[in-house]
């Protein structure tokens, strides 16, 4: 075996450094979450100590309800926005009508609206609708703001379904809705995975809407609860880290289950017979 050339070595060093930079905070988070209060103060953050699960239990005690809140509104908003996006995508790509291009343009603009700009009117609207500080309210807001990106995703995917398939279904006697239900929807597993994972992570990770639209515990999302762990006077680093890991868990699980399909979905030209 030949000894690697100097340029190669330099490359490896650089790559290892990048990998180290990437992993270090995560590592620190894990070690700290497994330490007692005392060890947190007396040891270097990256150094593992005698493990304890107490911070995990403490964090869960505080975050249990918010995690459940987040899970419920994320799940429902993901399902709703994906389905509506799917129907929109079908209509905009397969049923051309006057102004459909214009409508699609509006959808794409919707993707780029910075959420900060709508916060105050949104808050007022939600409170008039009596949906302020409620799970239903968060489901509604996340569904509505998820529709543009989902529409875009599904429309692009449906562009790959051959038009002749739709024409064949029409001459076979199927109406618009039957075509969607019997032909388009069964061919949509790939975009549903892509849009679903995307929506789940972005709604789960949302902080801004949760912070503004919820208060107290009934509807408080996990992202906001996590920030609250910081406390006002003292910082319990181990509990915060454990809370962060609890918070990350569902997204990790989603990726573990759907990751395989996600890659397939991104590559999908999956409908060719």
């Amino acid at each position, binding site marked *: 075996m030949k000894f690697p050339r100097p340029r190669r070595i330099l490359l490896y060093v650089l790559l290892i450094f990048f990998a180290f930079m990437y992993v270090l905070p995560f590592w620190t988070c894990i070690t700290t979450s497994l330490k007692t209060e005392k060890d947190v103060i007396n040891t270097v953050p990256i150094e593992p100590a005698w493990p304890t699960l107490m911070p995990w239990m403490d964090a869960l005690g505080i975050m249990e309800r918010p995690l459940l809140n987040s899970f419920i509104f994320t799940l429902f908003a993901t399902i709703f926005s994906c389905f509506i996006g799917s129907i929109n995508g079908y209509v905009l790509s397969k049923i051309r009508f006057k102004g459909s291009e214009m409508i699609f343009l509006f959808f794409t603009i919707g993707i780029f609206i910075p959420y900060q700009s709508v916060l105050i009117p949104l808050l007022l609207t939600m409170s008039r609708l009596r949906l302020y500080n409620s799970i239903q309210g968060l489901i509604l807001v996340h569904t509505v703001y998820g529709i543009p990106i989902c529409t875009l995703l599904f429309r692009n995917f449906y562009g790959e379904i*051959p038009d*002749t*398939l739709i*024409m*064949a*279904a*029409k*001459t*076979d*006697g*199927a*109406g618009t809705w*039957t075509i969607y239900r*019997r*032909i388009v929807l*069964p*061919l949509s597993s790939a975009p549903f995975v892509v849009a679903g994972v995307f929506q789940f992570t972005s709604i789960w990770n949302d902080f801004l809407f949760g912070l503004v639209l919820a208060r107290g515990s009934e509807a408080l999302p996990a992202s906001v609860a996590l920030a609250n762990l910081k406390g006002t006077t003292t910082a319990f680093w181990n509990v915060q880290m454990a809370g962060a890991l609890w918070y990350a868990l569902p997204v990790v699980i989603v990726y573990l289950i759907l990751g395989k399909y996600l890659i397939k979905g991104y590559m999908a030209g999956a*409908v*060719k*017979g």
Partner: protein
Amino acid sequence: MVNIIIKNLTKKFGEVTAVKNLNLEIKEKEFFILLGPSGCGKSTVLLCIAGLLKPDEGEIWFGDKLVTSPKHDVYVTPQERKVAMVFQDYALYPHMTVFQNIAFPLEVRGVTKSEIEEKVKATAELLGIFNLLHRKPKQLSGGQRQRVALGRAIVREPKIFLMDEPLANLDAKLRVRMRVELKKLHQRLGTTTVYVTHDQVEAMSIGDRIAVLKDGILQQTGASKELYDSPRNTFVAGFIGSPAMNMLEGNLVKKNDTVMVDLGFSMFELPTWIGEKLQETKESRVILGFRPEHIEITKKWQKNGIEAKVDMLELIGRELYIHFTVGNKAVVGISRPTEDVKIGESVWIVPQEEKIYIFDEKTGEALI
């Protein structure tokens, strides 16, 4: 079974006119072909008949029922038209089995389960795909997919079949076989069929009648023999028949009682039956046409012989294609494989008198 009447059909896509003022009558039980090069508007006509496209002007009648008329605001949806369509890419539903594909049009129409089962099986039997019923389209060969697409079309006994280049994606051998099967199927079912193709051989072999289209304009309608024997213009003459008809430009010259074409390098005397027909025609630029299969090759000068140099020989089984240069134009002849010619040799080609065509050079219209 019904007939289809198309009146003054016009369809535009933006600035482009795909079909212009088309008039056609497709008879009951007829196997009717729309033939033309790609982009001639033939598929557009088919989609208008299916109701998948709305024309800008004109009317479409199925029997005595008006199904499309923008003027009278009549538009019967494709779902209600009782037409079945077969597409070039077959358009099978990829997530359904063969059985489910064929059953789909029945299911959508609310046919009972037992009846569906019976009909799908009978159809599959007819098309020889019974053993494939549980496969997905992905697991089928091109020819098998083609049969499934046909099955899905015939299972609900439509009044009209529309086929958009259904054989174009098959290999040459299978195409010839499916052609015969399609014709047989049509004879058996007697369904009025409109068939789109760009392949003139296919058109001539299966069509009862053929409509030739170019740039959205109807050129000629007729049985294949009619199109071959008396093409109405140079486009039809060149499109029907393979290799294409030879065409040489020249001046029509009249001397005493004889009518001649001055080809520049040679004078071609037209037979009396043509001369009589051209009595009214003024001396002008014309095109002399004759098919490759209607020539004689001689080594000595003969009356009306055209001197030609042999460029290339193509032996195609039982025929020999001979490529000549005449003046500065290319001419093709078909002969027996035993024909004694060599590349580079000069010979005389003599078009058969009764198989000569004369077209107006400017308009391309046949003058006789």
